[in-house]
């Protein structure tokens, strides 16, 4: 299957992109939106997106096949890792989930179609998406970019998505799959890629957008925010880190092997490259002082099992060197006394578990390299993680059912935005509050229509119709 040249991202490498080209593309997008997208109904769009999701789950779908065949070379993820990631994502793209998302974020499924009654008497409300949504996407994994495109379609926005240099493969395939299903809808989407620092192109793009969504490193978010006109809505999703907390006593409800397998599922998903992937697991030392180190050993065994059925992608020498050098240092620590222990794959850098008693939060070098640290309590773990508090997204929690509510309150009060069961960290539902915000709700603008109350009434419902 060869992809036709349809999006800017399809142009041969080295084809010159100019500010004029970007401006022209924005103009075309706005026009196409008026022609093909602005007047579609929510139900139509939901049906179409759900069909797209179903297509991607079909083993013989040409786009899925191509993603799995060529994806490893383009993305660095193994076929099995890609398959699992795509299944998790598109499995959630269903009609019922989309409807639930609309109700959750907008209160009403039809509020994007027409004015609807509001709780406030004598008022009707309507939600409108931005006419042109500009997205600057991160390249670490595809989910956030695909989800952003889906949300943009749902709110009837034309979209210009600037992909990361190394992250355009799957968004591009997704764009073409949309085109195969509904070419007119795909005409409201533009995908492009250019190297960082092309401010000449970006400045044109940022001037054109009614809403700008940026995902990436904090420095990227700050840079784009500074260049976005004040009249445009700006949504920035910066760098996030995640970790796991395993409470003492959970072994009464789960076996050590199950627990380790769930943790390994979180470490192996997207090879740990997501903001929701764990850098470390804090393990509570209860009556059993050995529990944390036993968990580390079990996690190592689980990672070895995952490696056989879902191998990590091959690494460039500099990334492998990072792991090798870091392993070496921990191996010296382990050899020269102290309580450090290290487990790792033999003859490769496929996975690494480091056990250290010193509780300070430690960032992983990723690619399935994870820390296990014992703590006496969740409070102690949060104290140790204080330096990254403002960057924390998700905590994967494994705790006895009776303790979960208390722990969740403690995590929420500290600043965690998402708490999920261990094993689900990289599988947020479609409806999740991205970094604590309603991702769909943040895109829309509300129009209030305050109706005149009928004579003799001080408060009444709006006219019907």
């Amino acid at each position, binding site marked *: 299957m060869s992809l036709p040249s349809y999006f800017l991202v399809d142009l041969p490498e080295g084809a010159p992109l100019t500010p004029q080209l970007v401006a022209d593309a924005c103009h075309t997008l706005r026009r196409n939106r008026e022609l093909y997208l602005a007047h579609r109904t929510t139900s139509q769009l939901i049906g179409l997106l759900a069909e797209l999701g179903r297509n991607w789950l079909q083993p013989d779908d040409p786009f899925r096949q191509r993603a799995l065949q060529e994806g490893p070379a383009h993305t660095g993820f193994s076929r099995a890792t890609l398959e699992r990631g795509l299944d998790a994502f598109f499995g959630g793209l269903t009609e019922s989930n989309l409807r639930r998302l609309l109700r959750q974020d907008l209160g009403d499924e039809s509020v994007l179609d027409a004015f609807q009654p509001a709780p406030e008497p004598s008022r009707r409300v309507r939600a409108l998406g931005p006419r042109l949504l500009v997205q600057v996407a991160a390249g670490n994994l595809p989910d956030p970019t695909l989800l952003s495109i889906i949300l943009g379609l749902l709110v009837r926005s034309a979209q210009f998505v600037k992909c990361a240099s190394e992250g355009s493969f799957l968004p591009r395939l997704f764009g073409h799959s949309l085109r195969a299903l509904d070419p007119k809808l795909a005409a409201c989407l533009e995908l492009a890629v250019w190297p960082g620092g092309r401010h000449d192109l970006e400045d044109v793009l940022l001037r054109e957008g009614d809403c700008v969504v940026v995902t990436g490193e904090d420095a990227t978010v700050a840079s784009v925010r500074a260049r976005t006109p004040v009249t445009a809505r700006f949504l920035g999703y910066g760098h996030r880190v995640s970790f796991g907390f395993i409470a003492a006593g959970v072994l009464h409800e789960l076996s050590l092997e199950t627990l380790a397998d769930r943790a390994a599922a979180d470490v192996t998903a997207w090879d740990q490259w997501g903001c929701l992937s764990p850098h470390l697991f804090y393990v509570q030392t209860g009556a059993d002082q050995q529990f944390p180190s036993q968990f580390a050993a079990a996690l190592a065994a689980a990672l070895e099992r995952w490696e056989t059925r879902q191998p990590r992608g091959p690494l460039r*020498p500099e990334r492998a060197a990072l792991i090798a050098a870091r392993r070496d240092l921990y191996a010296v620590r382990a050899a020269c006394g102290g309580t450090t222990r290290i487990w790792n794959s033999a003859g490769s850098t496929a996975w690494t578990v480091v056990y250290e008693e010193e509780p300070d939060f430690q960032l992983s070098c990723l690619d399935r390299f994870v820390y296990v640290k014992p703590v006496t309590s969740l409070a102690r773990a949060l104290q140790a993680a204080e330096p990254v508090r403002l960057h924390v997204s998700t905590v994967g929690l494994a705790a006895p059912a009776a303790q979960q509510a208390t722990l969740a309150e403690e995590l929420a009060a500290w600043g965690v935005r998402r708490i999920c069961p261990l094993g689900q960290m990289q599988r947020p539902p479609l409806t999740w509050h991205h970094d604590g915000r309603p991702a769909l709700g943040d895109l829309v603008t509300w129009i209030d229509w305050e109706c005149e109350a009928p004579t003799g009434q001080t408060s009444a419902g709006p006219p019907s119709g």
Partner: protein
Amino acid sequence: MSNPAPAPAELRACAEDLLQALPEFARQTPDPAAGEWGDEAFNRRALELFALQFRFNPPYRQWCLARGTTPDQVRHWTQIPAVPTAAFAEFDFSCLAPEARTAVFHSSGTTRQRPSRHFHNADSLRLYEEVLWRGFRRALLPEEPFPDALDLLILLPPAASAPHSSLVHMCETIRRRMNRPESAFLGSVDASGGWWVDPAAVWARLEQCASLGRPALILATAWLLVRVLDHPGSHQRRLSLPPGSRLMETGGYKGRTREVPPEELRKQIEAHWGLPESAIFSEYGMCELSSQAYDHFHVPNAVRAADPGRAQSTVRVRVRRRFRFPPWVRWEVVDPETGAACAEGAVGLLRIWDLANVFSVLAVQTEDLAVRVQDGFELRGRAAGAAPRGCSLMALEPTDPSPVANVPRS
């Protein structure tokens, strides 16, 4: 003050033996890695030294035992376990008892990181000085006797103000052996501990060399060279340093200034100072080692041979650059994935066995990426951030432009 405890007699004998065997490079070009320094002889010396270091260096012994390696099992120098450079920051990889250590060299790095430490005493410094001098002469100063007229300019702080820099100690050794005044050092250390050099003073000294027709020998770090060349008003300035002038450049940038690729830096130096590319030498060294590699060797009279009638700056001598160590050092590029030696042309981590590291550990695992090119290697960056820092900054914050202290080495 009482005399420091002596180093173990066996190690002192080993150092003495090495000193006696050091080849006279200035008279040996090209130097043969044969005979005294052939594989067999190197292997014998390496295994002897390994056995001593296993005995006298407690953390190294633990490291070897953890890897299941003891001297009686090792048959070839490639089997001698290498210590990662990052571990020099945390453990005392030294055969010298604490009371025997009279000097310590630190690695570069920001003030937030703990530096690597390489401990020394009088014996190890004597060996270091002899070894660095031989290596330096072989690369930059092979003339015998070396040219008397060379004016020495060192763009670094003087030894007294940077006692923990192996690079400054190296330059100080070169200065003394060349019998040049202390004023050769043009740099200083500022209040925050950062290194500094006055670009105007450097330009003035270079202009003096040019006008007096005295060739200059310049020793500098790459980032301080960039500072000097970037100094306001420098862009228009053009000097023509006399033939025979040469420059040794070393060290990375680590965020101190804008990074300039080595080829670009050489072009700028040629354009501004009239030093041909062939007169610019890159040095590779680190505080954890005693020996240095250079990326090519000075050929005396090359200019005259090429074209005696023309000014040096107009003659192009083709330079094939690759780092080479002196023959008492062996190295390998290892595949980070498997730990096995890489094929020529493949990028891997540089591992070094330096026989002159008598009183510490001879086998050092660097975080430098390299490729083997014929009998040498080219550098391809670093496994950046391999040593984990406290969760402080890594990747979470934009690069911190705060001033940095310490030595831009390795």
